């Protein structure tokens, strides 16, 4: 009897593991297809063969410039920001134990945006300096929210509410700068604010890549603690997780990812919000889905960017598309939950 149960449990475990691996592999494949499509499509479409020739360093009239100067940076930026947003979003959602608590809603992205808009419109900076300052301000913002919610004793709902309050104040500052700004610069800032991969240059990619890889590693290594944190703070403390330190490490890493991704691509709406739940659904409960969330983030950003570029008569920035896709999915998610009598 007990042997039968044990076998059943083992079989279930193996099945879930298979499912998780299968899901992750298919996500990787979809991401690769989208990456190639990003390189192939454009004003002139190139064949796969041409892409590989250009990537291996061969000079081809026209194609070399279009692919390696315009499409490759755009694709890489989309992939890295997508991964960063997806991963960081799932960390936030897990840590705060609420599907709706993604960093762009909790006010972290707003701080980054404010700093970036200030740099672009008022200081006239561009490139690395914008990313750097934006990243630091985003971090400070997150720390301030965290410090404020630590008055008395920390609770996730306080963290969320204070974040939303901060966001409103920051939004006001952004609007103020937008109204004061020069007419010609505003459209650019507005596009940036809605999240756009336009005009990204190759030189800003390496730093983005390094930051994303480093913090991804940190998050994946401390994931065990994250899984325990998800069980609730009291239980986590009992199980011997140092709450304060793991929370700070995770928040700092997630915020760095968000801030850096945001400073490059603008606040691409809803990616960090959608990636986690989608990944969870694909991978299945009980498995780690942080890496899969990153992959879903990549797919969302690249697919939305392709749609934004080619599906309409006007070229829309990627953030507008993800925002519009995000709204119906939000409904689906919430009403699906309500059927199962779950809580948010």
């Amino acid at each position, binding site marked *: 009897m007990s042997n039968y149960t044990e076998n059943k449990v083992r079989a279930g475990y193996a099945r879930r593991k298979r499912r998780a691996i299968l899901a992750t592999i298919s996500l990787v494949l979809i991401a690769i297809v989208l990456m190639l499509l990003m390189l192939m499509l454009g004003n002139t479409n190139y064949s796969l063969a041409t892409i590989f020739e250009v990537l291996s360093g061969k000079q081809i009239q026209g194609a070399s410039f279009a692919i390696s100067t315009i499409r490759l940076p755009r694709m890489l930026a989309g992939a890295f920001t997508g991964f960063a947003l997806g991963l960081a979003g799932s960390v936030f959602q897990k840590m705060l134990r609420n599907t709706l608590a993604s960093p762009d809603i909790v006010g972290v992205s707003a701080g980054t945006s404010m700093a970036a808009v200030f740099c672009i419109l008022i200081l006239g900076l561009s490139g690395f300096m914008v990313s750097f300052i934006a990243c630091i301000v985003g971090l400070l913002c997150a720390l301030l929210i965290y410090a*404020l919610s630590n008055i008395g004793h920390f609770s996730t709902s306080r963290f969320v*509410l204070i974040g*939303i*309050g901060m966001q409103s*104040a920051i939004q006001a500052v952004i609007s103020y700068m937008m109204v004061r700004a020069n007419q010609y610069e505003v459209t650019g800032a507005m596009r940036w604010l809605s999240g756009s991969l336009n005009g990204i240059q190759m030189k800003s990619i390496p730093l983005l890549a390094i930051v994303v890889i480093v913090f991804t590693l940190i998050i994946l290594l401390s994931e065990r603690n994250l899984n325990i944190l998800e069980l609730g703070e009291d239980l986590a403390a009992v199980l011997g997780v140092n709450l304060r330190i793991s929370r700070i490490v995770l928040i700092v890493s997630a915020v760095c990812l968000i801030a850096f991704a945001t400073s490059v691509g603008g606040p691409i709406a809803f990616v960090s919000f959608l990636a986690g739940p989608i990944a969870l659904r694909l991978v299945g409960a009980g498995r780690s889905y942080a890496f899969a969330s990153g992959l879903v983030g990549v797919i969302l950003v690249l697919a939305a960017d392709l749609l934004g570029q080619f599906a309409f008569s006007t070229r829309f920035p990627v953030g507008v598309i993800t*925002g519009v896709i995000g709204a119906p999915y939000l409904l689906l998610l919430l009403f699906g939950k309500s059927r199962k009598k779950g809580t948010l």
Partner: protein
Amino acid sequence: MKKRSVYVYTIVILIALCISVMLSLALGSKNIPIRDVLHHVLNASTDSFNGAIIQQRMIRTIFALLAGAALAVSGLLMQSLTRNPVADPSILGVNSGAALAVVAGITFFHISSAQQFIIFAIIGAAITTAFVYTIASVGREGATPMKLALAGAVSNGAIASLINMLVLPQAQSLTNFRHWQVGSVVGVSWDNILMLLPFLLLGFALAVYVAPSLNALALGDEMATGLGVKVKKIRFLTVLSSVILAGSITALAGPIAFVGLMVPHVLRLLFKNNIKVLIPLSIVTGAALLCVADTLGRLIAQPAEVEVGILTALIGAPVFIYVVIKSKVKSL
């Protein structure tokens, strides 16, 4: 004791209101002595240079008073109805809903008159509020402050993307929208205010009508039903009133955040939770607050102005955070 303190407060805030109105008329990029202000107001003369300036400031002052009063009452109703300390029209998505409806109206139906703006804004605000509240009520424990705020923030995000989608291809509407979005009491005409009045009167009348029943509702739904309150009807009328008040102001002024949150909170700290008393107090306090904020906005960045919507957000956000930290509500 409580009763006397209400009277004292009323007198103090009325005096403050009068002073803030006088200052609003007197101060700006050209300061006019109070004596001249009084002279011009009493004789209603517009022929001199100062008279013309006062005439202009009169419009925005009156509009600021109306907007402050309407937003404060709207917030008071929302908070009482949802028994939720963070319910503010801007958090419940009234502003962004109204914005989306107005932008959609401009793009698809080519609306241009203030009246059309107001109607579109009210419809948009109503739909969004219902939507946000429905989302937040999903699940067992109902609409907790956190779920309400998150649902509002998520919906605001989604609506912002939709607005961008409509606005980005058109440079002209982008400019208009950018200026509307900050929330300002400038650029309103007498005609607009006249247009607004019937909506506001309807909203305030509804608020006064539901006030006694809201007091009963505060005791809980069963108790209220026992006291003879038609709970569903009162809920509907309260939301309607709140949305009409906030939506119509938002249509003309753009989003002015946090007034609806701050005023009722301060008043509730000072007085008992009696809606019948809180409504008139909110009207006066909200009007005074917005009038002061508008005047302040003219002074701190001379010769330019800081729009009142930005100022209220900058003052209001710390208040909001304070409320969250101090709140003794169980679910926080």
